[in-house]
């Protein structure tokens, strides 16, 4: 590997020797695909035929009126097949797997969206599929586990470490080092060793390309700000890529959990608890202690509950091109509630972080301007988590009743 994927000192490829040849092959396959104009056409056609692309840019008229500030637009990644932007990356990598002639895919998943998307892709392309998922996440995302298994994937609950997303990534790597001859690891976000950050951002950039064209069609002007939530960073990089060279302020919103000063959050770029380190094959900001041991993270949104962050975003933080903020669990649930009632769209808890930050800032912006919020996924399929976040008593009654029926 000649290009090791550095972004002003972040990134790299810290991989065990056994995987070097596999990464060389992946890098080579990706490079050839990226340089082949027919490949992007094939990808865009597949996404249009299979996953409702281009996704709409919805004018949120009621939210706009509610805040009395800029015209608010929502990029509807929730309308992808399987309900999130994860489909973009997964279908793109599926095309690469086919080019490499591999027959099995593995993936990690946190919230379950990436796992469901990967299982869908595997079913469509005829690949065998194994999904690694932290035991804690298996518990809180049972409906997604159900669908992965229906789609023919084997779901392996990970009982090591803190039993969440980072531990699932480690287990996927352990599978890969044994089975790389026929297996591709479909990493779900713009993290990990090179070429994953570049490759995942490349597939997700379809979001930003569409959003830029759509806002110019509808508004005849660029947005002043674009908001996206940041877990690993793939939906944020996807939409930001469309506006990188424009005079548009880009805002990434991390999981503030119970507050940045509580130690119970997943904010790597806003919180003082994070520092630069090397883990899971790449260099970036991690939530780690002074010895370099990774710390437990917390977020109401499983998909943001991760110790590291894309090396590309770490660079964009240091260069100042992207501003990073954090929204707390409470702010996020309020923003979600307001969005559902006011606009009739149901963002995922992850995406609601972007809404929460946009709502904090909207009243201070001019009504002459417009902003875009990336709705990276839909919330209705996370009904168990969201019902819990709302503490909905009727839902609890229903579950108790349902459980009693199963016992009878």
């Amino acid at each position: 590997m000649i290009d090791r994927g550095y972004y002003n000192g972040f990134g790299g490829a810290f991989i065990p020797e056994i995987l070097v040849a596999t990464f060389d092959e992946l890098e080579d396959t990706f490079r050839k695909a990226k340089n082949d104009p027919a490949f992007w056409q094939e990808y865009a056609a597949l996404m249009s035929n299979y996953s409702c692309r281009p996704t709409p840019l919805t004018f949120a008229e009621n939210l706009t009126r509610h805040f009395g500030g800029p015209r608010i637009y929502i990029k509807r990644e929730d309308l992808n097949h399987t309900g999130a932007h994860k489909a973009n990356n997964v279908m793109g990598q599926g095309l690469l797997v086919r080019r490499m002639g591999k027959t099995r895919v593995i993936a990690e998943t946190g919230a379950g969206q990436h796992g469901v998307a990967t299982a869908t892709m595997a079913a469509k392309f005829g690949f065998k599929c194994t999904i690694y998922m932290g035991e804690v996440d298996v518990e809180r995302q049972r409906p997604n586990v159900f669908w992965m298994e229906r789609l023919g994937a084997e779901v392996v609950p990970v009982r090591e470490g803190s039993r969440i997303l980072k531990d699932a990534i480690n287990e996927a790597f352990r599978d890969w080092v044994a089975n790389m001859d026929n297996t591709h690891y479909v990493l779900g976000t713009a993290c990990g060793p090179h070429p994953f950050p570049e490759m995942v951002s490349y597939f997700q950039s379809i979001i930003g390309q569409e959003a830029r064209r759509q806002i110019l069609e509808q508004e005849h002007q660029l947005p002043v700000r674009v908001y996206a939530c940041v877990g690993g960073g793939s939906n944020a990089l996807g939409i930001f890529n469309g506006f990188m060279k424009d005079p548009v302020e880009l805002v990434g919103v991390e999981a503030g959990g119970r507050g940045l000063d509580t130690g119970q959050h997943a904010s790597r770029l806003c919180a003082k608890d994070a520092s630069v380190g090397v883990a899971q094959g790449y260099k970036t900001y991690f939530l780690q202690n002074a010895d370099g041991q990774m710390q437990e993270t917390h977020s109401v949104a499983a998909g943001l509950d991760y110790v590291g962050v894309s090396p590309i975003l770490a660079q964009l933080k240091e260069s100042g091109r992207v501003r990073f903020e954090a929204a707390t669990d409470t702010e996020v649930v309020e923003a979600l509630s307001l969005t559902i009632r006011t606009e009739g769209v149901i963002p995922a808890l992850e995406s609601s972080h972007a809404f929460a930050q946009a709502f904090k800032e909207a009243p201070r912006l001019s009504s002459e301007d417009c902003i875009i919020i990336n709705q990276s996924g839909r919330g209705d399929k996370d009904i168990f988590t969201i019902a819990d976040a709302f503490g909905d008593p009727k839902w609890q009654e229903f579950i108790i009743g349902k459980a009693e029926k199963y016992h009878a």
Partner: protein
Amino acid sequence: MLESYLKNRLKERQILLMTHIVMGYPSFETSFRLIEAMVRAGVDLMELQIPFSEPVADGPVILHANQKALSAGATVQQCLDMAQTAAKTFEIPFLFMSYYNILFKYGVERFTGEMAQRGLSGAIVPDLPPEEGADYLSAMNMYNLSPIFIFSPTTSDARMKMLASHARGFVYCVARKGVTGLDTRFSEQLEAYLDRCRRATSLPLALGFGVKDKADVDFLKGKADIAVIGTQTIRLMEQEGVESVGSFIAGLR
């Protein structure tokens, strides 16, 4: 330094034994007793693993040991202190094994300085290929320590040469794909791979991943210079206690 020690030792013994422990698992006191038992049983060198929260190259047994050590409160400082005591007490060379973040957070040059001062001979850092390790390599050279690099069955001949040009002490040859602690088939294929390793370097060759009994060690005689016993001793300690580890090792050769 390490290389000449190993080559001298190989004049007396057909094959050398390298063992491994995770420091702080299940406690630092037991770790030290394990080292003592292993040295008495005649091991020629040892890997002391500094536990890390994300040990991606390790299989379930060593992974579990890493996590237990950390949840019992093991720190890098305690590991440095324990390694120093071991190096002072026993004659054999000791190596650190850990993941790069441990060195990176400590400061690579500061960490290697500590290694030299505390009497360590070298280090194995499985997630640090030489392309990412310029700082590490220059610091290790400055303190005359041996950076141990890894060959795998998927490593090309050209890459083996490149790795060998950075390696000192010996080269660690991984027997197969996968993580530590799974079964390995000791076969003709393995022999052909070791031949390929031998052509790439004049350094002694250690073979690790899956060496678990006397038959495996016998198979390696004449083919590799060092047999690496990793996971098997942890399993044994967990099942039968520290004492059984000594007699197990004494029976390997």
